[in-house]
Structures are given as structure tokens and as C-alpha cells.
């Protein structure tokens, strides 16, 4: 740990804007891939970059007990971190049905279908890769995604694991989030980009706002 390491709760508004811009370009690329996959229009929210006390992180997806499907990808390379794609139960069901072109009930409480699992993992894979490609082009960093891992569970349990590393460093977490929406089908997905503190500094340096 060097002394120059960024303190998350001291990020300036210019730095947060730079992170939103990254999320905008990354998620834009992912939304395009998503649209092509579903063969229909996918809208994307304006990205948000918020600094939250750790205790609030498990609450950000409608409460700690909300049932979600979480697809987590670890990122290695020049700027390591994690990417989480989260869908609420109904959205996950609609999405897999659209892609598989059949009506399967997705019961997250019981053992889910292998094919639904693979479908969701594959979606996570495609979205994450598109996001990282855009980020790579912007920063010249080599970013290597892991195979995705899937969990159906309480949002709180999934989020606390995803943002755990922030807890090692301090009492705040940087939450960079973009929402995907398919209004016709009522599918809503949340995309989170979680750089390590070292990566965060590298990315901000690369964008020319490392010291502001």
C-alpha cells in the first residue's frame, strides 16, 4: 500500500464524473451487445457513481433480503477488479425465457435448471466482455475476465461478498452502477463495476484526473 493510494470518500466530483463516463461508454457497449443478443432495443440509465458507507451497500438492490440472480466476473490484468450483473427474480426468468424461447418457470428457491444457469452465465459473460473491451480501448489497459460465477440468493449476501474488498481498505465503498431496461418485457438489470483501490488510482491517472 503506498501513500498515494486513493481514499474513496475523498474522491472529487471531477473524478466521479470520469468514472461515470467510463461506465457510460462501457455499459453503452454492453447494451449494444445485449440488444443484439435479444434482438430488441435495450435502454440504459445514466450511470451513477456513489460513495456509500459500507453498511448501506447490502441495501442498494431493494433491500438486503431481495432475491436476485448475481453473475460475478473477476477481472485480472492491468487494472484488476470485479464486475457484477444482478437481476431480480422476475427479470432473470423473463430474460432466460426470451433467450431460450420457451416458458420455463425460474424458481430461484429450489434447484434451478442447468440450462437457465448456463444462459445467465453466458449473458454475464457477453455483457462483461463488451464492457471491458470499451474500457480497454479507453485506457490501453489489458483487462482479462474470469469465467463467470452465478448465485441466486439474497441481495445483501451477494453484495457484501462483491464489495468485500472495500471493507479491507476503509469504511466506504465506491458504487458505479448502470441499469439496463427493456421496457416492453419489463426486464431490469443492474451492472456494477468494482475496481480495486489500486486499479481505481491507475484508471483515474490514465484519464488525467488522478490528482484532482
Amino acid at each position, binding site marked *: *500500500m503506498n501513500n498515494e493510494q486513493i481514499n474513496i470518500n475523498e474522491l472529487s466530483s471531477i473524478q466521479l464524473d470520469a468514472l461515470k463516463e467510463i461506465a457510460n461508454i462501457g455499459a453503452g457497449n454492453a447494451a449494444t451487445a445485449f440488444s443484439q443478443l435479444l434482438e430488441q432495443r435495450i435502454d440504459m440509465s445514466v450511470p451513477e457513481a456513489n460513495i456509500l458507507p*459500507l*453498511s*448501506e*451497500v*447490502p*441495501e442498494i438492490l431493494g*433491500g*438486503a*433480503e431481495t*432475491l436476485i440472480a*448475481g453473475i*460475478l466476473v*473477476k477481472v485480472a490484468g492491468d487494472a484488476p477488479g470485479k464486475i457484477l450483473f444482478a437481476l431480480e427474480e422476475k427479470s432473470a426468468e423473463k430474460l432466460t425465457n426470451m433467450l431460450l424461447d420457451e416458458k420455463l418457470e425460474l424458481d*430461484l*428457491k429450489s434447484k434451478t435448471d442447468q440450462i437457465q444457469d448456463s444462459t445467465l452465465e453466458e449473458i454475464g459473460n457477453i455483457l462483461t466482455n463488451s464492457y471491458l473491451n470499451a474500457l480497454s480501448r479507453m485506457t490501453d489497459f489489458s483487462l482479462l475476465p*474470469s*469465467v463467470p*460465477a*452465478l*448465485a*441466486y*440468493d*439474497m*441481495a*445483501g*449476501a*451477494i*453484495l*457484501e*461478498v462483491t464489495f*468485500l474488498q472495500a*471493507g*479491507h481498505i*476503509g*469504511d466506504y465503498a465506491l458504487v458505479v452502477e448502470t441499469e439496463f431496461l427493456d421496457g416492453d418485457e419489463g426486464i431490469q438489470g443492474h451492472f456494477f463495476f468494482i475496481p480495486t483501490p489500486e486499479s481505481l488510482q491507475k484508471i483515474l491517472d490514465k484519464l488525467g484526473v488522478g490528482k484532482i
Partner: protein
Amino acid sequence: MKKIRVKMADLNIGEVDDVLITSGLGSCVGIALYDSRTKIGGLAHIMLPEVPTNRKSKNPAKYADTSIELLLKKLRQKGANFRRLVAKIAGGAHMFKFDNSNPQMQIGARNIEAVKKILKEKNIRLLAEDVGKNYGRTMEFYLENGEVLIKTVKGEDRVL
């Protein structure tokens, strides 16, 4: 009956017919301490095993060691008797399966181990536990009788 919520990296105490609740424990561990005579109890939701040696923490409730210490202090102030305190713990799951998962890196397992070690050092008897595996848990701690209800999305509720 008063419901008291305990968020991640936080703790709280209550008495008589209060219910202490912490939701969505993943790799974190929930620690319930109870004095059955006074019906005073406390619940902590810890994230990490111990305070790193190279830094001072601003939030003692985040780490197993400092959190249990603080919880004991609050329980003593409230009038609980240390010799009667018993513990029930839950959580410490391994939520995502990555192929290269190294057990030493699994924070859930390290949290469980740290909590058990500290309870032993403090001579607090561990009465029951529901730990590990790969799913999230919610704890509801009823101070009326010391029961801890464990809720998951995967199976039946369980009483500790």
C-alpha cells in the same frame, strides 16, 4: 416487541422482548450473545476476521475481534453477566464458486474461525451454529427466550 435492525459492519443490543435482526449474511458472520437470566442480548454483523495491524479502524464493528469486544462492553453496561453469556453464530458462506478458489482465501471460513477462537478466549460457550456452505442467511434473535431463527432462500427456516 421491538424490532432492532443490525446492518453490515454494525452491532446492537436489546432486552426482554426485543428482536434483533440482521439480513443477508453472506461471507459475513452474525454473532448473537445472550444472558438468559436478565434476557439481555446483543447481535453483531462482522465482515472481516481482525483489524489489520497496519491501520487503525474507525469502525470496530467491522472486525470479529474489536466487534466482540465492543459488544461485551455494551452488554456489561446494560447489566448482562459475563459468566452466563452464551453464543450462537451464523453465516460465513462461500457465495460464488470460482474454479481457482483457494480455501485460505475464503473469507467466510476465516471469519468463522476467527469468531470461534475469540469466543473461546473469552470463555463464552458456543451453543449453536449454522455456518459455511454457499447460501445467504438472515438471523432473527428473540431475546424473550434466546432463540435464533435462521432464514434462507434455499430451504426451511431453522431455529438455533
